[in-house]
C-alpha cells in the first residue's frame, strides 16, 4: 500500500484544542509525523511587557485553563525573588495546597481524556464526576473553578477556614477510595491494557536526550521532579515520593499519574495537619528592582519555567515562559513513529498536551503570500464578503429599525 498522509487537526474530535498533525501512514502504521502548532498564540509574553507586574499576574494565570495556578505560581515566585520578598509560611502552605488540588484535578481530567481516546468512555465519566469534588474546593477557596487568582506577590489572597479544612480532608478520603478503584481498573482491565502497553515507547536515554519532562519523563524511569530537586513553596516541609515507572510506554504514564494522585492526597493531608498560624501575605512594592530571575515549578504536566527581566520600573522588561508541553513535543514525534494510526490520539494525549500553554509563537504557512490589512480595511472586507454571500447588514439594520418604528 502506498503512503498516505492524513491530517489530525486543526479541528478533530480527538483534540480538545487546535493543533495540526500530519500523519504519514504506511497501511495502518505511522511512518512519520509532522506537526504545526501556534493556532492558540495570543501574544501573552508581549502583552506582559506593557502591563504592570500585578496586571501581568492575572494575564499569566489565563495562559492555561487547567494549570492556571502553575503559571501564576511560577511567575509569582520569580517576582518575589526579584523583589526579595519573604513569603509567610501560611501563605506558602496555602499556595502549595492549591497546587496539589490542581494536580489532582489535572490528573483526573487527563485520566478521563486518555480513556476517551481509547474508546473507554465509562472511565471518562467516572473520573470527571470525581474531579468535580476538587473543582468545588477550588471554587470555594478561590471563588472560581479555573482561574482561582489565589496568588499575589508576597503570599496569597485568601485564607482557609477550619470548616474548609475539614471539608477538604473528608473529600480526600473519598477521592483516595475512588482512585484506588481506578488504579485497579487501569491495572486489571484487559482491553485497556492491550491498548496502552507497548504503545508510544520511548527509552530512558531518548527521554533524556529529547528533554522530556514531568510524568512523560518519569514513566521512562527518569527520576526528575522539581518539587524534590529544587524545592519551592512548602515542599521542603512535606514528605512525598517521586513516582517513577519503568514501563516506558503509555501504560507507564498512566501508572505514574495515578500514583501521583495518591502522593497528592498525602501531601494535602500533611499540609492541612501542619498548617501554621500567622499572616498569609506581606505587602509587595509596586516597582520591582532591576535584575533577571528564573523560576521553576513542577506543574501537573511537568516542569514549568518562567524567566523575568526587570528594569526597575513597575513593568517587566521581558517575560519568557517555557511550558511543560513544549518540552515534550519532540518526545511525541519520537514516540509516535512505528505505532498504528489507532494509537496516534493516545500517544499525543499521553503527554497531556496543552496547546494554549505552548503556543508562544506562530509560524506563517505562506510567509510571502497574503496581505496585511488595517482594522478598518478588514472590517470593510468582512462587510463586502457577507454582501457577496447575500447577507447585507446595512440592509438588515434598516429593516430592523423600521420594524422597531412600527412596534412603537
Amino acid at each position, binding site marked *: 500500500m502506498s503512503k498516505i498522509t492524513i491530517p489530525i487537526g486543526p479541528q478533530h474530535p480527538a483534540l480538545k484544542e487546535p493543533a495540526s498533525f500530519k500523519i504519514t501512514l504506511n497501511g*495502518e502504521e505511522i511512518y512519520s509525523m509532522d506537526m504545526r502548532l501556534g493556532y492558540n498564540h495570543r501574544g501573552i509574553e508581549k502583552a506582559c511587557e506593557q502591563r504592570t507586574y500585578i496586571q501581568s499576574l492575572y494575564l499569566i494565570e489565563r495562559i492555561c485553563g487547567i494549570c492556571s495556578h502553575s503559571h501564576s505560581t511560577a511567575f509569582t515566585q520569580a517576582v518575589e525573588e526579584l523583589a526579595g520578598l519573604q513569603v509567610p509560611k501560611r501563605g506558602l502552605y496555602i499556595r502549595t495546597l492549591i497546587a496539589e488540588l490542581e494536580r489532582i484535578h489535572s490528573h483526573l481530567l487527563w485520566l478521563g481524556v486518555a480513556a476517551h481516546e481509547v474508546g473507554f468512555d465509562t472511565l471518562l465519566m467516572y473520573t470527571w464526576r470525581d474531579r468535580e469534588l476538587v473543582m468545588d474546593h477550588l471554587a470555594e477557596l478561590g471563588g472560581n473553578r479555573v482561574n482561582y487568582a489565589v496568588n499575589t506577590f508576597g503570599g496569597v489572597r485568601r485564607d482557609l477556614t477550619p470548616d474548609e479544612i475539614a471539608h477538604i480532608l473528608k473529600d480526600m478520603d473519598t477521592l483516595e477510595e475512588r482512585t484506588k478503584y481506578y488504579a485497579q481498573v487501569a491495572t486489571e482491565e484487559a482491553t485497556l491494557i492491550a491498548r496502552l502497553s507497548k504503545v508510544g515507547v520511548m527509552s530512558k536515554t531518548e527521554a533524556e536526550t529529547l528533554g522530556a519532562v514531568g510524568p512523560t519523563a518519569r514513566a521512562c524511569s527518569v527520576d526528575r521532579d522539581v518539587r524534590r530537586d529544587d524545592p519551592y513553596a512548602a515542599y521542603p516541609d512535606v514528605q512525598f515520593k517521586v513516582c517513577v515507572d519503568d514501563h516506558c510506554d503509555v501504560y507507564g504514564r498512566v501508572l505514574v499519574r495515578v500514583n501521583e494522585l495518591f502522593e497528592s492526597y498525602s501531601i494535602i493531608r500533611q499540609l492541612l495537619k501542619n498548617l501554621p498560624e500567622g499572616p498569609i501575605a506581606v505587602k509587595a512594592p509596586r516597582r520591582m528592582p532591576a535584575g533577571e530571575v528564573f523560576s521553576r515549578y513542577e506543574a501537573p504536566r511537568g516542569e514549568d519555567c518562567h524567566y523575568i527581566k526587570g528594569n526597575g520600573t513597575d513593568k517587566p522588561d521581558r517575560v519568557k515562559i517555557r511550558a511543560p508541553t513544549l518540552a515534550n513535543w519532540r518526545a511525541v514525534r519520537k514516540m509516535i513513529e512505528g505505532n498504528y494510526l489507532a494509537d496516534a490520539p493516545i500517544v499525543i494525549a499521553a503527554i497531556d498536551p496543552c496547546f494554549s500553554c505552548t503556543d508562544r509563537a506562530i509560524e506563517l504557512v505562506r510567509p510571502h503570500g497574503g496581505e496585511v490589512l488595517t482594522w478598518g480595511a478588514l472590517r470593510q472586507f468582512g462587510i463586502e464578503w457577507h454582501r457577496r454571500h447575500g447577507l447585507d447588514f446595512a440592509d438588515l439594520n434598516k429593516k430592523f429599525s423600521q420594524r422597531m418604528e412600527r412596534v412603537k
Partner: protein
Amino acid sequence: MAIFNILVFPGILFLVAAGLWFEFVDRRMYARMQNRQGPPWFQPLADFIKLLAKETIIPEDANPRLFAAMPVLALTATICAFFYIPLWNTTALFSFQGDAIVVMYLLTIPTMTFFLAGWYSTSLYSTLGAVRSLTQLFAYEIPLFMAVLAPAMLANDWSLAGITKFYAAHPLLALLNLPAFCVAMVTLLGKLEKVPFDIPEAETEIVAGAFTEYAGRHLALFRLAIDIEVIVAGSLVAAIFLPFGLTLPWWLGIIIYLLKITLVVALIAIMRTIMARLRIEQMVNFCWKFLAPAALAQLMINLVVKGFLQP
C-alpha cells in the same frame, strides 16, 4: 393480511418503533452504568426527525446516486432479513429451506454498504473507515456464520423456523449451544460496530469513519438501519439460541420476545460500558485466535451429539 404484516406488524412500522425504542434502552442503560442521567425516551426519534430536517451534503467527488442509495440499501437489507426470523412463535412470516443462510447474507449487506458508502465518499477518514469495516468483516463473519449454523446442523434444518421448532421441542439441546451463543454475541458487537469493536467509526481516530461525509436524511437512514440491525440481530440470536416460551399465547409470547431483545441489548450495553476499543489488528487476532476455534469446537460438539441423536 400479508401487506399488513409487512408494513405494520411485525413489519416495517414495528421494526422502526422497536429500533428507536431499543436505541433508547441501550443509551439509557449505558448512561446509568456510567453514572449519568441519559436521554429521555423520545430522544432517538427526536434525533431522527432532526437529522431528516437537516441539509443534505454530498461531496463533490462522490457519485451522488450511489451515495444516496447506500443508506436505503442498508435499510432494505436489514428489513428483508427480519421477515425470515420467527419472533414469538415457531413460524416466520416467510420461510424456506436455507433461509438461515439468506438471513446471514442479508445481514452482511449493511456492512458492505458501509464500505461502499465510505469508499465513495472519497474523503480520507471515510476511506480509512471503509477499509476498516471490511477488514473487520473478514474477522468476525466466519465465526458468526459458524456459530449460527452449528445449531442449524444439530437441528438438521436450514430454515430458521425449522431450527426454532426443533429447539422448542428439545429445550435442553439449546443449552448445548451456549458456546456458540457467546461467540455470536461477541461477533455481533463487531457486526454492529459497538465498543470494543467500534474500530471502523472510532471517533477519536477517524472522526466517524465511513459516515464522516454523511449528513441529513442519508445519515438519518443509516442510523435507522443500524438501529434496526440491532433488533434483527437480536431476534436472530433469540430465535436460535433462546427458544423459550415459543408455545405460549401470542400476547405472552410477544412480551417474552421483547424481554429476549432487551437481554441482548443489555449485554451489548454492558460490554460497551466495561471495555475499551481494541485496535484493528488486535480485533482480527482475537477473532481468529479465540472466536473461530470456539465456533469450530461448537461444530464438533454438535456433530458428535447429532451422531448420538440419529443413529
